[in-house]
């Protein structure tokens, strides 16, 4: 039997916090330690923020999130209907993380997710949209959450 939470939200910034808190509760149900709950909340917040800001040209299509609870882990899939994904732009944003030029004020969401998880997948849709998929794993007992 699937062990999932599924959310469809209008792409509104005020909903990002609501989704984050739902996933924080799911992390606690999955018996995550406090640090891993925070990792899950941050990764989900970034992925949903990315979906909402990418979809700015089409502010009506829902963002869909599926969270699957597994032993010691939660897998997240966020699907948006934004414009065709540009891998080069994403790579440029990744580079900017370590830039000293302060040339960014936005576009750091996916690089932050990449810094939190080991299996970030970005799957462009055929005509539009992007699927962002990753797994947040709970820290093993006794390890430093940071």
């Amino acid at each position, binding site marked *: 039997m699937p062990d999932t939470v599924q959310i469809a939200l209008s792409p509104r*910034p*005020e909903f*990002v*916090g*609501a989704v*984050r*808190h739902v996933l924080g509760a799911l992390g606690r149900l999955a018996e995550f330690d406090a*640090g891993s709950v*925070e990792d899950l*909340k*941050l990764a989900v*917040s*970034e992925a949903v*923020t990315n979906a*909402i*800001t990418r979809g700015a040209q089409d502010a009506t299509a829902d963002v869909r999130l599926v969270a699957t609870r597994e032993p010691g882990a939660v897998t997240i899939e966020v699907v948006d209907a934004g414009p065709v994904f540009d891998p080069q732009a994403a790579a440029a944003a990744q580079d900017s*993380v*370590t830039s*000293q030029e*302060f040339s*960014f*004020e*936005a*576009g*750091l*969401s996916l*690089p*932050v997710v990449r*810094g*939190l998880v080991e299996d970030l997948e970005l799957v462009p849709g055929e005509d539009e949209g992007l699927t962002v998929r990753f797994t947040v794993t709970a820290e093993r007992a006794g390890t430093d*959450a*940071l």
Partner: protein
Amino acid sequence: MDLEVDTEQRDRWSVISLRGEIDVYTAPRLRQALIDLIEGGKSDILVDMSRVDFLDSTGLGVLVGGLKRVKAKDGSLEIVATQDKILKIFEITGLSKVFPIHDSVETAVSA
């Protein structure tokens, strides 16, 4: 899920004290507080995040924008943060090397 923003002057520092969560919805309030200070002639700004429960890259982007603006006036923008969950995102993004981070407002003001 809200963000309270208070500002006070401590010696040469304009201290922005934040309480709550900083994300794509609330970050514009921090951005406006920074802009108000800088346009009011302040260029040494200390952002106290010790009572911030959540910070994401949108909030970091606002801080970087503020840093650019104060640097243009030979000013500085420094951070007070103590919680691991807040410090972690500074580490992930490399911004812990860009912003001086203090463990209390008193430490920062007396530095």
